[in-house]
Each structure stands twice: as C-alpha cells, then as structure tokens.
C-alpha cells in the first residue's frame, strides 16, 4: 500500500465493517452460492409444509394403481406397491435432510473436540487420539457401517442409528486438520496469556482456539451435510440404511433402480431431487469457503 492510498482512505472516513458483515457481502456476491442457499431454504420449506397439502401420504397404498405413470391422480406416478412417488420423494427428502444435518453437526462437534484436545494437551492424549483416528480410518467406513446396520435391522428409527454411525465414522479427516491448526495456535500470546491467567483448558479451547478456526469448521459443517446425504443414499441403496416403510431418497432410488429402464419415474424423481439438494449444499459450502478465506481472490474488494 502506498502512502497515497493511506492518505486517501483516511481522508474519506469509511464505516468500519465487521467480519460477519464482510463475509456476508462476499457471500452474496457469489451467484452460485446465493442460488444454492435459496435452493436449500426452498427444499427445507417444501419438506416441512407440503406433506400436509399433498393428496397422498408417503405410506398410503392406493390399491389398484400399481406402477402407474404420472397423471392427474398421482402427479409423479406410483411405485410397485401403489405408493405415491411425489409424497415418498418429499418424505425421503426430509429424511435425507434431517440425516444430513444431524450427521454434520455431530461429526464436526466430535472432530473439533478431539482434534483440539489432542493438539492442546499433547503427550499421551495426543498419541491416543491419533491412534484412534488411524484405527477408524484403516477400514473403509462403508464396510463397517453396513455390517452394523445389517445386524440391527429394526425398521423403526433406523435413520437415527444410521446418522449416529455415519457421524462416528466421519470425523477423522477434520479432526486431523483441527489438530494441526490448533498446534499452530497454541503458542500464540493470547492463548498463553489466558493460560497464565488460570483459565481452565476447556475454556481456552472454546473461547480462544475454536473461534480462530471457525471458518474451517463452518465450511466443514456445510460440506459434511452433502457427504452425509450421499453416504446415506449409498447405504440405503443397498438396503443397509433407512428401512421400509420409512423412506429416504436412497431407499426410493434403489426401489426405482430395479425398474429404471421400464418405469423411469420412480427412479428419476428422487434422483433429480437428490442431485439438486447436494449441489445446493456444495455451492453454499464453496461460497462460504471463498467468503471466509482471508486470502480469497476477491481482489481487494471487501
């Protein structure tokens, strides 16, 4: 910065901009991210409002109308069992949304707690946490979750168990990143000052360390929703996830997959909704990353 521009900026006093305002402005400038955010809000509203307004519920069977193509009676057709595809898609979407957000919140909580603990305390706690991370990462999570889900095939609340398992096997990567970031923060002056003032360790982590890596955590949380939804549909596709009569997008896609070449509507409706949902989540995640990144290439503009 030259002296000229300093003089200029002091000459015309500008209002100081808070960090959150700055982030919001950067975020709003990104069209993809705004579209994604609107999309997510719209989908959540649809998931909450429409089930009561539709002519059919997701578990209702319209006997005599099996595998019917979309028409006035069933706007998106029916399944082999005579269930309304539109109602099932909306219900499946709300299931997938709930699972996605539950998993993301849980796994980000686990990873920032364990990652920060490992780095802050060091020694045996770091060694043991890193060892647990290695242990969890050595086998593809799909295999373990599938075996456990297969063993507990209770249709009721199967989504909750699935969400817990996905979170239990989804935190390791972020925990590693949190650990390395915490390592670089823990010898900063303000952390040491807080320490010598006698603040307990958990307060130091919560007040001084985690807020400084919050941008990573926010982005991770958002992208985690997308990963969780994809993982959920993947497991449900094989029948190791949400189980009938409950429906998620994955269960519905797997039901449609067998008949996809002859009765494409059962497959295409949930598949399109799923892709839109995950794309929206990812667009928001990417937008947040750019908006929160202090080195972002927004060219000096706020």
């Amino acid at each position: 910065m030259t002296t000229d521009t300093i003089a200029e900026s002091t000459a015309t006093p500008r209002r100081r901009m808070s960090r959150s305002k700055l982030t919001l402005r950067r975020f709003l400038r990104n069209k993809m991210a705004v579209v994604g955010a609107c999309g997510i809000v719209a989908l959540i509203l649809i998931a909450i409002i429409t089930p009561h307004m539709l002519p059919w519920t997701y578990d209702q069977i319209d006997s005599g109308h099996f595998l019917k193509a979309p028409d006035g009676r069933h706007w998106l057709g029916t399944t082999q069992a005579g269930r309304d595809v539109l109602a099932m898609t909306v219900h499946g979407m709300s299931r997938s949304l709930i699972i996605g957000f539950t998993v993301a919140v849980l796994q980000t909580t686990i990873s920032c707690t364990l990652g920060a603990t490992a780095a802050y305390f060091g020694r045996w706690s770091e060694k043991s946490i890193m060892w647990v991370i290695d242990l969890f990462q050595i086998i593809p999570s799909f295999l373990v979750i599938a075996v456990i889900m297969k063993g507990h095939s209770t249709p009721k609340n199967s989504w909750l168990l699935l969400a817990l398992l996905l979170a239990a096997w989804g935190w390791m990567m972020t925990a590693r990143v949190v650990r390395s970031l915490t390592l670089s923060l823990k010898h900063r002056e303000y952390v040491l000052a807080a320490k010598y003032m006698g603040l307990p360790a958990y307060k130091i982590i919560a007040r001084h360390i985690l807020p400084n890596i919050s941008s990573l955590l926010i982005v991770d949380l958002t992208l985690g929703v997308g990963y969780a939804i994809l993982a959920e549909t993947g497991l449900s596709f094989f029948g190791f996830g949400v189980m009938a009569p409950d429906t998620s997008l994955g269960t519905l896609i797997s039901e449609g997959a067998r008949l996809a070449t002859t009765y494409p509507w059962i497959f295409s409706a949930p598949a399109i909704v799923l892709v839109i949902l995950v794309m929206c989540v990812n667009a928001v995640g990417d937008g947040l990353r750019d908006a929160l990144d202090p080195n972002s290439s927004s060219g000096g503009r706020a």
Partner: protein
Amino acid sequence: MARYIAKRLANYVVLLFLAVSAVYFLAASTLNARAVYAVRNPPVDPGVLDAMLYRWNLNDKTPILERYLVWLKGVFTHWDWGFTATGAWVNDDVSIKMWVSLRLMLIGTLAGIIVGILVGAWTATRQYKPSDRAFTGFALLIVCTPSFVIGIASQILAINVNRWTGVTIFEFVGEAGRHGSYFGAVFFDRLQHLLLPTLALLLIQAAFLSRIQRNLMLDSLGEDYVRTARAKGLPKSKAVMKHALRTALIPTGTYVAFSLATMFTGAFYTEKVFSFPGLGAYFVDSLMNPNPHGVVAVTAFSGVCVVCGAILSDIAVAILDPRVRLG
C-alpha cells in the same frame, strides 16, 4: 526413510489386526449362517446342520470367542480365511473376485486420473472463461451425483442409443455375454461389456480429480516462481507445464497412489449396478446371505489396500517433492 516406513508399517499391522478382529466379532455376532439353511425345503435335519456348521466354524451355538480363536489360528497357520455356510472356501472366492474388480476398475481409473489432471490443469489456465465454467459446472454435477445414479442414468441413455441406432453398441449386464465365433469374439465381447461401466468410472474419477487439480493449479499459477519464469522469457506453455503443473502435481500424486491401491476392492455401486461379480458385490452378497467369513476377508483385504495406499502415497511424495527427495 526406510526406518520411518518400517515403523509406520508395524503400527499399521497392529491397527489392522485390531480392526479386522473387531469386524470379525461384529460379523460373527450379527450374521447367522444358519439362516442360509432356514429356507431349505425339505428342512435340513438339525443335528446334521449343527455338525455341518460346526465343521465350517460357523455354528452360533459355539461361543464366539472360541470361533474367533479357531478362525485366527486358521488364518495365521494355513492362511485359511474360513468357509461360507455352503462350504465354499473364502480364499478361492476372494482370489477370483479380486481380479474381476481389477479388470473393471483398471482402465476407468487410469483414464480417469489422466483426463482429470489434464482437464483440471487446463481449466485452471482459463479461469472464469466459458470453457472453464462449463467444465467445472459439469464436474460439480458429477461429484454431487452418487455413482449408482450415474450408472443407472448411463444405462437408460445406453438403451436409448441402442434402440435409436438399431445396433447393440452398449452391453451392461455382467462381464461377458453371448458372442459370435469369429476371431477375437470373446475379447471383443468383454470389451463391449466393459465400455459403459468404464465410461461411468472415468467420468466419476475425472470429475473428482479435475476439481482438486484445478484448485491446486490455480494456487501454483499465482506463485512468484511462475511469474519469474515468464519474466525471464519462457513461453507460457512451458512456464505452465514445467513450473506450475509440476508443483501442482505433488498433492495429486498422493491421491493417485491411494486410489491405485484401493482399486482392487472395486467399486461397490458400479459392480452392483452393472452386475460385475467383483469384491464389492461379493461383500454385499455376503451380508445378504449370511457369510461372516467372506465379510471379514473382504474387510481385511480392503484394510491391506488402504495401508498400501497410505504407504504408496508417502513414497509418491518422496519421489515427486524435491524438498523431501533431496532434503
């Protein structure tokens, strides 16, 4: 370096042993091999069934710890990974299916890696131009679509192409099918069955990798040494290829090493959608028709692949990164 790798390897062996043992207990306690015979008509005599299950070390009346010890002894003394409920040897199954998975994955993965790196690097040099927007948008769409949806959508497309052209260009059920008797018919038939799944795999792999490579390339294009290279008179293509791309390839190298090692475990969804009887499909079937030994064997195999991948990516960094290689 050798000592470091040996130490890590020892740690991995311990981790692998614990993880596989845990999966054994999980699988043996939840998957009851007796269920395979429950649907037999006429029913199998209970005494005979018990004796048979006992012989395969699958009897749920034997305490699980005892079964585990018998299985462990078999693995360590005879490299015997156990039997299925119908008496097939898991070692045979895995050793056949592993190559099916590899045949399915090999071309798609390799081509996907190359295409992904090239597209990623190329779009980075054209940031925000229409071609960049088109490619990155398409890559985002593919990344956000689960692989089974891509597989099924490609099948629907293929059927329409077949119908439209009147020739069966795409075959998508299984690894081989009916074929003529001309020279090379068997080979051609296999290639034809491989075409669609390979395209699907290529698309998935390339989309994923191109996103990573584009970001890395954008970072390295902005570095001072690229500007220096241009400033001292190097043509743009040379500055991009020699100075920017080379450094941007280092992190990709670790990923590539990893995905090469895990290629053997196959792609669960692609195998299932295209009916390739590979390891992934074997694992899913082993859960459906209770076959705990098969589940454990596939898990252990995947674990070994993951370990190999981790070590390979360490080596890849050592080879690619001059700071590690020369330091």
